[in-house]
């Protein structure tokens, strides 16, 4: 009835970790609310905006850019923001609440694997969302980012910042519902400052200044700069690094498995 399987060290083999990732991915698909909001909504917005004629006309006020081109980074950041704030935090807080992590801590598999699995799944979905949004916006005739290195760097830092905030929510929220609530309460103001309702280029000076210091505002700033062909400003990148480091550190300190 038993089979001896040999692996080194005290931990199960990595194949077990990937099995966990696969199971968690299936669970995410079975409750697809987060997927639909994080990936589906930006795509829907992209399609709507893409068919608004005025959004496709170059404007002198915007230095010859179209409104649609301004939305490329905003919609990317939409997907990353929702995945980070809600996608990462909700399952972890829920698993802690239900005792799933506690039960797992009784097996040789470390519960930190669950954290790793959630990060990988949300990163995977984030990549997918970025791909679809950027290909979609290209299909509507907007050219791709001219400073690819800066664009990729800004994307990575945006993920680091927003996922760190998501982990912080997972650390402080006592249940999945609380995590969801905190995530959404943070998400919509952040998206306001990221320019979802009117792009940063159209914001009055004060608002834009505040936006520069928000994680998603800084991300859109950096992405837009790179899209136009310049390397993102040090401030925009450092703001994201700051959020990643500060919230990451608090999350590590406060995170409890039970």
């Amino acid at each position: 009835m038993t089979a001896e399987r040999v692996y080194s060290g005290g931990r199960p083999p990595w194949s077990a970790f990937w099995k966990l990732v696969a199971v968690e991915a299936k669970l995410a698909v079975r409750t697809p609310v987060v997927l639909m909001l994080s990936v589906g909504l930006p795509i829907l917005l992209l399609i709507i905006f893409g068919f608004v004629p005025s959004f496709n006309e170059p404007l002198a006020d915007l230095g010859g850019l179209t409104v649609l081109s301004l939305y490329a980074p905003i919609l990317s950041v939409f997907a990353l923001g929702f995945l980070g704030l809600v996608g990462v935090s909700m399952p972890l807080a829920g698993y802690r609440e239900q005792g799933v992590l506690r039960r797992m801590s009784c097996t040789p598999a470390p519960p930190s694997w669950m954290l790793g699995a959630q990060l990988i799944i949300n990163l995977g979905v984030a990549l997918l969302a970025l791909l679809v949004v950027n290909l979609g916006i290209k299909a509507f005739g907007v050219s791709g980012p001219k400073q690819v290195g800066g664009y990729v760097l800004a994307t990575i830092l945006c993920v680091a910042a927003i996922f760190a905030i998501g982990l912080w929510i997972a650390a402080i929220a006592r249940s999945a519902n609380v995590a969801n609530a905190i995530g959404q309460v943070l998400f919509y103001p952040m998206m306001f400052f990221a320019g979802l309702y009117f792009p940063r280029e159209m914001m009055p000076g004060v608002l834009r200044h505040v936006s520069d210091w928000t994680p998603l505002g800084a991300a859109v700033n950096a992405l837009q700069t790179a899209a136009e062909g310049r390397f993102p400003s040090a401030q925009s990148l450092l703001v994201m690094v700051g959020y990643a480091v500060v919230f990451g550190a608090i999350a590590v300190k406060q995170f409890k498995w039970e």
Partner: protein
Amino acid sequence: MSIIEVEQLLKTYGEVVAVDGVSFSVEEGEIFGILGPNGAGKTTTVECVVGLRVADSGAIRVLGLDPRTERDRMREDVGVQLQESVLPSKIKVGEALDLYYSFYRRAADPDRLLDLLGLSAKRDAYFKNLSGGQKQRLSIALALVGDPKVAVLDELTTGLDPQARRDTWELIEGVRDRGVTIILVTHFMDEAERLCDRVALVDRGKIVALDSPDGLARRVHSGTLVRFTPSAPFDDRLLTDLPEVQGIERQGERVVVHGSGDLVNAVILALAAAGVTAQKVELGAPSLEDAFVSLTGRGLHDGNGEDEAGEVLS
């Protein structure tokens, strides 16, 4: 050889002393019962044993390891069934078992476990759609899938119907027969009597007695015992005055008389003389329940506000 040793375990939650100086050892291959009312400190004790909680003081060795500092090495050999079965609501039975199977170096065949626990037909069912009993059985399967040397089972049959309870008992005996040492936490007397080689009676954080189920029962009353339901109220002295009678206890409607000699006849005659008939008469040796009442002065299922506070915390 002792496979688990617990010495002077102490655990408090604020003002509440959940476990108050508990010591016991569990021998290899036995089913060791921890029996007591809700809030007695049973769950806290075993959670310390498996390393889920850290005791305030005391020493624990499981398979020669310290659950606090050597928990990593312990997990491979100690299977745990927690009181609440906890899995993501939309995981399928088969997925959960396969996943946990992959976590262990040495593992039991998941398909056979599903078969043994009568869950084969539920392989593709979501966890949230299982009945209470099915969740419980899956939880047992997860505790056994790592082919443990020690299995800690907390409230094994709570929420199961009578048939499922008996099936589960048989399963646990089968597991024990394969050489697995089992700690069984329960508040069911019949479960402890049926399964356990030795039982620790726990009350208010202390072990009040530790013996085989028979030994515990014998320790209470050496003589015989008569249980009956009287047809009418009567004064205890009617029976306590009899030379054959040593003690009388009332358990709800039922009356339990301990004594020696020709106890049954003496009791029935005395009652008849007072115009009382003894109905549903049972004879026998004292049960574990009698032992518990006698050792703690109260029943297993008596409510107790203070203790329930402890249970909420534990």
